[in-house]
């Protein structure tokens, strides 16, 4: 068993807990073991960077943590809930309440303005239109884009698009922020701004963040880094 206990706090402060998680994929007639009996604990308020080569299982792990996929075996417990046992519809509702996604390619809807994109997750709440707008504005202000609220993604720079993506991820005040290569498509300056923003969300607003990255410079901004190789987590990169 490959176990990495990343937490340094008490059990009640643990946001993410993976217990013996294995994930198998079928590729034609072959079965590939992408994750191998992983154990992981992430305390509340942590900023964890996950590094590793392509195909090592980082994104698969993120998909499991975000409820976009289910483990073949083992438990994925987020904020006390074993999400692997939820039905599809319950898992959708759970994602809306507990997870904010930040993607490498931003994934903003091109037909919506920045404000509408940010307000999108709030459409799943019982908030009225006025309140949704107010909260979207507040999130945009937090990422420094209040003056770009009415702009569509095509009218924004890559860095600005990613800020909108982050605003969308935090607008519902989720338990967990999952960032998949958030600076992978940006130049260094814009990337640094995004990383500083994530640090701010972590330190000032107490957000628990798990970030997948290939970039050691980005990983250095996190509180700590774990390495994944061939489906196994470790505290040190493989030599």
């Amino acid at each position: 068993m490959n176990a990495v206990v990343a937490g340094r706090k008490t059990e009640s402060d643990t946001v993410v807990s993976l217990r013996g998680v294995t994930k198998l994929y079928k590729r034609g007639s072959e079965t590939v073991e992408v994750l191998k009996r992983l154990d992981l604990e992430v305390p509340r308020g942590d900023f964890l960077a996950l590094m590793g080569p392509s195909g090592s299982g980082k994104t698969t792990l993120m998909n499991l943590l975000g409820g976009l996929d289910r483990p073949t075996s083992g438990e994925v417990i987020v904020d006390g809930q074993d999400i692997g046992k939820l039905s599809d519809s319950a898992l959708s509702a759970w994602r809306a309440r507990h997870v904010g996604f930040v993607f490498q390619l931003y994934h903003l809807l091109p037909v919506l303005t920045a404000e509408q994109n940010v307000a999108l997750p709030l459409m799943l709440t019982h908030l009225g239109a006025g309140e949704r707008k107010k909260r979207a504005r507040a999130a945009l202000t937090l990422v420094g884009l209040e003056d770009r609220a009415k702009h569509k993604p095509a009218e924004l720079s890559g860095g600005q698009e990613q800020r909108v993506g982050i605003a969308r991820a935090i607008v519902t005040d989720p338990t967990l922020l999952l960032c998949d290569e958030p600076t992978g498509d940006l130049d260094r300056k814009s990337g640094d701004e995004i990383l500083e923003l994530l640090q701010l969300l972590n330190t000032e607003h107490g957000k628990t963040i798990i970030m997948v990255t290939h970039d050691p410079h980005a990983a250095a901004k996190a509180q700590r880094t774990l390495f994944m190789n061939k489906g196994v987590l470790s505290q040190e990169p493989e030599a």
Partner: protein
Amino acid sequence: MFTLIWMNFKRNKGRKLLTLLSVLVAFLMFGVLMAVRHGLTFSENSAAGARRLLTINKVVPAAPMPVAYAERIAQVPGVKAVTYYGAMVGAFQKFSNAFAVVSAPAQSLFQVFPELYVPAAERQSWLQDRTGALVTPKLMQQFGWKVGEKVPILTRLKQKDGSTTWYMTIDGVITNRAQNSSGAQQMFIHYKYFDETRAAGEGTVNQFDELLDTPSQAGPVSQAIDTLFTNASPQTRTGPEQAVARSIFAQVGSIGAIITDVAIAVFFSMLLIIGAILLHSARERLSEFALLKALGFGSRTVTGVVLGESLLTCLVGGVTGMIFAYLLIAALRQTVTQVLPSFEVTSLAIALSLALMVLFGVLASLLPMVQLSRLSVRDALGRA
């Protein structure tokens, strides 16, 4: 969700415009075809309409039959009254101003067609005037005729003196109270004068119309009339007005069925086009739909966006198409009124078109919805 549907509806304006145009044209055709179909199959709403039969030449519908048949038809049990007419094409000043000249015996004409209305004084005047004519309001207006005026009517039918110009006196205006006859271009003259004056075809008519005692007798009376002339030449074909009209059209290949087939073909093509466009559009946006799912939107919401977009496309294009059909039919009604007196958009056609818009909206979105319901968020987001 409506925001998403509306915003997606407005994207890619060029493609959307072409899609809407294809739907618009399809429903424009549908509206016009339905109006033509209605015009072909419509029977008068008057009570007498259900009680009337008509008799035509069995072999060639417009070919002449002996007027003497009328007396024998009148003796068939169940026949209350018989009238008949001979017809020719007339024109005023030039042959492009053509209209129908119907020659009928005055008394029986009004007996069999009680819905024909002529003011009493004008009717009396016509009954006493051998060369008199009754004309529809449209003709009066079109040629600026006045009651009492004598007008030369150009025809291709020679009179006994060799002339083809018939001089008729306008004795009054005739209207049909059972249906909108504002566009009808007809002149009614006395059959006796017509028959005595023409150089050829004396003693023949083009059609008999019978008023029955009760509608329930239509079948046996029709059969009895045709049996009368089984061994005569020409033989006859008798039936309710609508049925006979349909049988005439059946001879040239069932126009109604052809119209239906064309409409089905048009809609099937439209459905394929919209379905293909929606499928293509949905494929282009798989990552967007995957994002919605990742954010927590359920499959129903995501497929609902596609369904909503498809319905909106069909409704906007379809309603616009039906409006254009209505305007086109209104513009053409005057021109085709004699061939299709009930050429109009009916409430049934409107209801049917709305049902079809919804049906096609749903059907066209089925494939994309199935595709989206099977969408793997993980794969779709990774592919973008």
